[in-house]
């Protein structure tokens, strides 16, 4: 239906757009000398949803890419060529992601694509990138269990977000009882499977783990919150590890606040709640609940301050927040630029080979490195929600000197996955089985 509507509207508008194109052409001819011919620019694809349910998160990433490209062009572009952004809208529609990716690579001839948010959209574009041999930079924290030659994962793997968060709760809050609450899809399910195995390896018994899944956009949290309250009254310190995604978070936190569950009683640590998501809630009843990320806007470093200032100037909005996936795109984009300069070519094969080993300073004071498994090293921060909707880093003590954790594509805590290794430099394989010594092992 969407397609027929589109062709209908383009048919209706064709005369007007034709007129506009002619007018634009005339203007262009009169205003510019033809110095910037099309083949002098290098195209960069931006594949983020600008409409539909995911628009809330992904629109920001499109904006930050435009800003990064603009900034690089002001510095003279890459290898003497200007960069040009090609923005498409896959409209939160997973099959459309694959279609738009194909369009970007074959029709627009982009050298690299930055895009996707949900794991299902990434899985849907994977075959396209493999077949057409292009590069995708994926900026969001995800469940791991994947390493592809054509994809570079600049978001966190579970060992860079979920496991350190659980460690923090065990050590600092002495948590003994765990609620793993998530939205019902692949990221929470896999992450919770890893966490469950990890908790059991630390001696937590099955009775002390409660797992709960809810549908996307769940809005009536009364029963679940009161179940959590009940589960938490067994005399052992209890915490909630939340992989609840998207819109469902707001009513969840509202219900927590209303039922009077304070962070001092049952803290909630979330992996999908950032500055952007908190913008829709009054955070005063939530002070003290936690989030684990690899970047927080509130971390004070010169690089971060400059980035935020530039972001506000670029969007002409001094209130726009910055968040973790934005930083991932910042790192990914600069790594790509460095790899192109190292390879002296925009050819995807040469860039893919040049990328492992590239180092790029992140915004919070460390230097991230692209690893042979196409994941990067990242610092891990635990932040507490503040009354103003920002996060206050409570671990590590000095966020600017945080230790960098290398991303692990295959979890060490899952059967089947712990024997696998990804290495695109020496082994040239994304799922090498260390036991059978063969490429092509199966994950969980």
């Amino acid at each position: 239906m969407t397609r027929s509507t589109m062709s209908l509207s383009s048919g209706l508008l064709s005369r007007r757009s034709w007129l506009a194109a002619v007018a634009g052409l005339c203007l262009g001819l009169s205003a510019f000398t033809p110095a910037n011919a099309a083949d002098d620019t290098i195209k960069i694809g931006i594949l983020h949803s600008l409409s539909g349910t995911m628009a809330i998160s992904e629109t920001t990433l499109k904006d930050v890419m435009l800003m990064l490209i603009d900034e690089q062009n002001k510095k003279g572009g890459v290898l003497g060529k200007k960069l040009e952004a090609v923005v498409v809208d896959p409209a939160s529609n997973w099959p459309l992601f694959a279609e738009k990716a194909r369009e970007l690579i074959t029709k627009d001839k982009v050298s690299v694509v930055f895009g996707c948010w949900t794991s299902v959209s990434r899985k849907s574009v994977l075959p396209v990138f493999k077949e057409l041999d292009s590069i995708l930079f994926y900026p969001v924290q995800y469940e791991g269990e994947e390493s592809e030659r054509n994809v570079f994962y600049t978001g966190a793997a579970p060992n860079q977000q979920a496991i350190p968060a659980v460690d923090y709760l065990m050590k600092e809050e002495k948590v003994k009882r765990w609620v793993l609450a998530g939205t019902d899809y692949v990221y929470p399910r896999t992450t919770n499977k890893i966490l469950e195995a990890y908790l059991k390896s630390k001696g937590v018994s099955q009775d002390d783990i409660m797992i709960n899944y809810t549908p996307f956009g769940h809005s009536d949290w009364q029963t679940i919150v009161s179940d959590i309250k009940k589960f938490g009254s067994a005399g052992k310190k209890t915490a909630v590890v939340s992989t609840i995604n998207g819109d469902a978070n707001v009513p969840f936190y509202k219900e927590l606040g209303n039922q009077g569950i304070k962070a001092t009683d049952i803290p909630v640590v979330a992996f999908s709640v950032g500055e952007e998501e908190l913008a829709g809630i009054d955070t005063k009843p939530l002070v003290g609940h936690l989030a684990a990320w690899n970047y927080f806007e509130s971390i004070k470093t010169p690089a971060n301050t400059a980035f935020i200032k530039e972001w506000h100037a670029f969007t002409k909005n001094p209130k726009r927040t910055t968040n973790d996936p934005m930083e991932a795109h910042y790192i990914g984009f600069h790594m790509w630029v460095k790899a192109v300069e190292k390879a002296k070519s925009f050819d995807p094969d040469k860039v893919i080979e040049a990328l492992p080993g590239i180092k790029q300073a992140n915004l919070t004071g460390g230097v991230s490195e692209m690893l042979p498994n196409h994941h990067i090293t990242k610092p891990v921060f635990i932040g507490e929600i503040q009354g103003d909707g920002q996060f206050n880093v409570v671990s590590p003590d000095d966020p600017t000197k945080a230790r960098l954790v290398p991303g692990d594509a295959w979890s060490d805590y899952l059967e089947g996955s712990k024997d696998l290794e990804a290495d695109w430099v020496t082994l040239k394989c994304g799922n090498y089985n260390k036991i059978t010594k063969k490429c092509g092992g199966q994950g969980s």
Partner: protein
Amino acid sequence: MFFNSDVSRRIVGRIKRAGAILALSVTICSGWSGVPAHAASFEDDVALFAARSFADSETAVSHLQVSGNPLAYPIISALKDGRLYADEDSKKVFIKGTDSKIVDAANGQSVATLPDSASPVRLNNRLRRTIDAALGSLTLLSPDVAVRIQAAQSVFKNHEESSLAPLDAALRNETNDTARKALAAARAAVVLFKTDASEADKLDAVATIKARGDQDALALLSGLPGDASPAVTRAATAAMTSIKGNLALWSTVQNAWYGLSLGSVLLLAAIGLAITFGVMGVINMAHGEMVMVGAYTTFVVQETIRTSYPAAFDYSLLIAVPLAFVVAGAIGVSIERTIIRFLYGRPLETLLATWGLSLILQQAVRTIFGPNNREVGNPSWMSGAFDLGQITITYNRLWILCFALTVFVILLAMLRFTRLGLEMRAVTQNRRMAASMGIATSRVDALTFGLGSGIAGVAGVALSQIDNVSPNLGQSYIIDSFMVVVFGGVGNLWGTLIGAFTLGIANKFLEPVAGAVLGKIAILVLIILFIQKRPRGLFALKGRAVDA
């Protein structure tokens, strides 16, 4: 031996108690000035806040709590609210008052301005717990009953031995019954966890806690250390079993309440559709977007109030309700006039047209207000919760239930007693006959559709209090709304009411057993089966009107 040590312990306890009471009364006496007992260390303790370490801050709080210094309470409460500032270089600590006046925390003297290098002392949850415990024992003698009860509650949770003396003092002066109970329970908690309390005292404590009988009591008893004496352990286990049985009973009541509350949300979402789809027979896929328009109207009203009359914030919803009705109703009338009136009797086309319309409205809102959630605040009378027996009832859910029922009654009365209602019923039952009686049917159509949309807008005001205000708000309610109307019986308002509450309650009793995802699926399957048996829903219209 035993006797002797017991006596000496009692004496020591009494002396300690007396000391603590003295310290407490000193704390409360704000006019008191002089040299406190720990004068030398007080300033050092305060300076610990400037060390920027959570552990040091914790030490400082626990020292301040027993210092007896009148500044201890202002310092700790400022720390809790994030109004305590520390300067790392000069090791100076400042309190920023609620009136923005700056005071040096070490000596209570006013300071003109905060140094630039000072920043708020950071908190984490462990520190917050220490603060709550400290404030608990410092506010046990507060003149405000509510504060005393809260203090007793926080002592109950933390059950620190140092709180025993202030508790005894507070119990002696307490006149309010509720506060007295809370204090007694708190004292029992402390005694139960005190290593050197006698067995008889501990058994008494278990009985007191058992009488409290709520979830906190259960949590406290199950956290009892393993080295307690057999008699105490036995009593505690028995108490836990009895509390658990009691709570299981209450949880049924609670499920019923949650069901009513979910039912009221379903009713609100569906009631507008009961008019446009139920009475008029228009398959209105843009119904959810009318709800969204109502929610965004609330947002605009609140923004306006926030910027121009912040004092009137509590009335924002009262202002938003009529406005949302007018805005959504006007949009409804214009939709009916421009699109739907050409499509009467063509359900498939109506479905496609209204579906397209819903996408247009969503994208329009996304363009105007942005794709992000918008913050709609709860007015103070809709925040928080109260306890009824052993269940917690949140105010916002209670008000939404009342509101849903009010809207229902008003709508019912309107259809029955007003001229417009009469005309509406006439037109929907027999259009040609109504027209021959001189009713302007097309005007009635437009008004009916406007009424349904307006009611949806009013529902949006209520739903903005519990859900996201985002362009997708409407989508999440459209399926549920159709479900309720079809289940209840098309064309019957009472059916919508009964249908909404039945589905709500069934859902909430299934959810604890089957989980949220399976529960929802089970409900859908049940409805499909039900519709097979009774295709016209719970309350089917009978007679000649049905196929007219």
